[in-house]
């Protein structure tokens, strides 16, 4: 009773000043759809919070200075050895601060999980088409967040000034230097002079603890606000249309679930930090520009850049006293540039190809967009081949394969594997679509066998219930500017070679198993490639894509 009174008293006091009753009520009653893939972004959010907390702890002891001192701490092997203050303070945190090693390891494991979760979340958004209108801006914000997370991680693990991360810094400097025209200037400005100089660690520090986290908080705030304002998408299912959200309310359900998930996130990172050693800088030793180890790799999210550097043939031009170091700046800029630019432009490219300007609030199942899913898997495998190549010396040692052979294989695979992945993924999607269609048309096998009077045995099937039908149904793809077939003048979007390319691409993008009865044997596009009869989609009354307020100007 008294708790209620206290709550209502406080609430009343605040409400007198902020008029919050209506707003909070709306907030509490907000509906969140439920699907496990919707929690991937939350992993990133909660690891970010963990990073902020543990990072603050570490900052209480870390000294971002490259001044050389003589070490006299508890790691006796290095007693009386010279090292930078940054390295010495990291040793101090690890060996002379209670909980220091644990918090350091939580921080680093959380950073790895942060990037892994962003990757998984980004792929989920892509494969379900959740980047489509009205969520294009949020997709772009997400890509910026992803890029920032790579940089943040790079600066973070380079702060302790150990041999492994220092080698990475040297590579970064060599890459910067190779950029035509401005490379040397960029390098000298970033490092405050020649490499390594005295400035890079303090500069990375302020980027890592102030500037980039500030950007993160602003962008994550925007990302979440937009998601709130536009409401979350939902997977197809019974009763779920493009005009509603079906799920459970924020209070108490979603709050409780997300709270539980936060604890799970913290738990898994603590588990890793307890039982799996990460970044043992005392093993690597302090940085020295003339020392290096075999098996030097950056953290996994930079692995694909490392692989690009290893895979590139030795190619340069020297023209009129100037060097185009293609062997360095192409691998540094091209794969990352391709993937990021491609990803950023994709929602708009897809919109251009399909001519689809409707709002989308119901996700696609990946199999229902075979071309998009196949393209995504192509990009993933491109990334994956480069990633594996980044570990080529470790692979060579542990798999007993000659070093150069791995690179040669990778040089071929980086082109062949994405193409193979595209083809195989597409076939798999089409096959799954066929299976779904079969279920929709013929129902589920019951296991009951009957013998007909003619002597034939048949298995009884039971039609799917409404909920299952709703999950399997496919939204009707939009026809690209339906025109009159008899009209010799094509509609505006389909004229000239650009228009013809658009029509072609549209056909490829909409390749799916047609939904029209037993028609063809199911693969490839139907002759005009872009229709599905309304029968099955409409019958279940779901996934109706005519969202309110659509405008096709």
């Amino acid at each position, binding site marked *: 009773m008294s708790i*209620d*009174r206290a709550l*209502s008293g406080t609430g*009343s006091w605040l*409400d007198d000043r902020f008029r919050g009753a209506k707003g909070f009520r709306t907030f509490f009653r907000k*509906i969140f759809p439920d699907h496990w893939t919707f929690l991937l972004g939350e992993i990133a959010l909660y690891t970010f919070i963990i990073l902020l907390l543990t990072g603050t702890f570490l900052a209480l002891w870390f000294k971002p200075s490259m001044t050389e001192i003589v070490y006299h701490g*508890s790691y006796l092997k290095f007693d009386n050895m*010279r090292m930078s203050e940054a390295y010495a303070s990291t040793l101090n945190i*690890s*060996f002379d601060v*209670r909980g*220091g090693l*644990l918090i350091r*390891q939580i921080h680093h494991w959380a950073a790895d999980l942060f990037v892994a979760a962003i990757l998984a979340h980004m792929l989920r958004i892509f494969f379900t088409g959740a980047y489509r209108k*009205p969520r294009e801006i949020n997709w772009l914000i997400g890509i910026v967040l992803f890029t920032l997370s790579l940089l943040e991680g790079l600066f973070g693990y380079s702060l302790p000034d150990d041999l492994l991360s220092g*080698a990475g810094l040297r590579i970064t*400097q*060599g890459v910067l230097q*190779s*950029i035509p025209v*401005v*490379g*040397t200037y960029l390098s*000298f*400005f*970033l490092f405050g002079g*020649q*490499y390594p100089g005295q400035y890079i660690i303090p500069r990375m520090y302020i980027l890592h603890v102030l500037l980039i986290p500030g950007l993160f908080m602003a962008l994550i705030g925007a990302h979440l606000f937009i998601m709130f304002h536009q409401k979350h998408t939902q997977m197809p299912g019974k*009763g779920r249309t493009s005009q*509603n*959200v*079906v*799920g*459970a*309310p924020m209070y*108490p*359900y979603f709050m*409780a679930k997300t709270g*539980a998930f936060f*604890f799970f996130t913290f*738990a898994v990172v*603590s588990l890793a*930090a*307890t039982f799996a050693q990460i970044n043992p800088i005392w093993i690597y030793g302090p940085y020295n*520009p*003339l020392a290096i*180890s075999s*098996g*030097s790799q950056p953290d996994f999210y930079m692995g694909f850049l490392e692989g690009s*550097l*290893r895979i590139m043939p*030795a190619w340069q031009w*020297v023209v009129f006293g*100037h*060097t185009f*170091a293609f*062997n*360095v700046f192409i691998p540094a800029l091209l794969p990352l540039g391709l993937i990021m630019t491609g990803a950023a432009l994709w929602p708009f490219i897809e919109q251009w190809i399909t001519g689809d300007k409707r709002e989308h609030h119901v996700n696609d199942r990946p199999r229902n967009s075979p071309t998009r899913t196949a393209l995504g898997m192509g990009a993933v495998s491109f990334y994956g081949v480069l990633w594996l190549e980044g570990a080529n010396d470790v692979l060579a040692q542990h798999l007993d394969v000659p070093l*150069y052979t791995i690179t040669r294989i990778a040089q071929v695979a980086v082109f062949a594997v994405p193409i193979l992945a595209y083809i195989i993924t597409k076939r798999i999607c089409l096959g799954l679509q066929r299976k779904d269609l079969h279920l929709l048309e013929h129902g589920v096998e019951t296991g009951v066998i009957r013998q007909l009077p003619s002597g034939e045995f048949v298995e009884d099937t039971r039609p799917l219930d409404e909920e299952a039908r709703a999950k399997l149904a496919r939204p009707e793809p939009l026809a690209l500017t339906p025109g009159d077939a008899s009209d010799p003048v094509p509609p505006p979007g389909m004229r000239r070679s650009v228009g013809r390319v658009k029509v072609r691409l549209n056909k490829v993008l909409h390749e799916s198993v047609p939904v029209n009865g037993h028609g063809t044997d199911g693969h490839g596009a139907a002759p005009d490639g872009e229709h599905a009869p309304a029968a099955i989609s409409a019958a279940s009354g779901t996934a109706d894509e005519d969202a309110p*307020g659509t405008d096709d100007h």
Partner: protein
Amino acid sequence: MSDSTAGHRPGDSDLTGSGSAAGLPPDGNASDGEAGAEETGTAPHRVIGTPPPAQARTLLGTGPAADAGGDGAVAPRELPADPPDLASAKRAERVVVACFIVAMLAGFGFIAAYLIFSVHSVTNVLHSNLALGSTMAIAFLALAVGATIWVRRLMPDVELTEQRKPLRSSPEDRAAFAQTFEEGADASQFTKRPLVRRTLIAATVPVALAPIVLLRDMGPLPGKSLDRTVWRKGLRLLNYGANTPIRPSDFSSPGGMITVVPDGYQDDFDALAKAAVIIIKFGPGQIVYGTKPYPVPGAVVPNWSVNNIVAYSKICTHVGCPAALYEQTTHHILCPCHQSTFDAARGAKVIFGPATRPLPQLPMTTDAEGYLVAQSDFTEPVGPSFWERG
């Protein structure tokens, strides 16, 4: 769509107009009956739209007009009060309580571990890390599991629907915005006085450029510094580590390799990042010499080596890692970062990998006391390629 018969919710004791305030117990039979009456075992399905004003409910004490609608009818429940199977909920409750107790104990365990386990040695840190980490992990895991079971088994299942509003503003709203915007633009005179507008834009240009200009002193201009290292005539090669000078007779075993640094710069990282050198001792007849007194591709400069000892820059010409892995049987120098491979017997010519230039050779000779010294600086820039390198 049935609704709460009693017409109130637990805790609503001071809601005006809500009938018998303290009458029914919070999770009592009433709600049980409700649950039974509402549906037949499946979650209730309701639509949340914009409820009629008279039915707005608030937790915040004496709500104003909305609650004092006074018609006596209170809003129907949107959420069921209890899960359908209370017995199973009771069992689940015990599990949840157990989880939270474990979490509490583990939390205290964490504090105890912090106080008990000291650090200051590798073994101590190992124990401390295990103790602190496992108590923390157990605490969080127990909280997580308890919270999950709470949501899944103690809270009643619901599936509610909320309508989306179109994202596009209505035409009236758009028109009103457009009008406000235009009126303001007119009032501001921005469009009517082009000189004001243009000079404003002109004024902002230096303001935008100033922060960039302020960054100029972040670093010196590269100038020619990348073309040179600290090596010069007569500078001794020191065996890195003990930093002692080297006589050819000391470095006499064929197949030998060692890192050397310039005398006086053994602790200067800025210098070492370009000036680190490896010397390699070959057996007789293994080196392929060129015929010119300057570097030619695929050959060692003859009068730059001493007694079959050759000196190469240790800084890989790809992106600057120390290229130090030397195989005496193949004479290959392998850079472990990206596998650029150089043939040390042939002027460090590139034979595999992404590097485009051979490792520069350091001109070497001996001084009066017989120690190895440099004849001069490298005759080309060391390390990674850059635009102005030529």
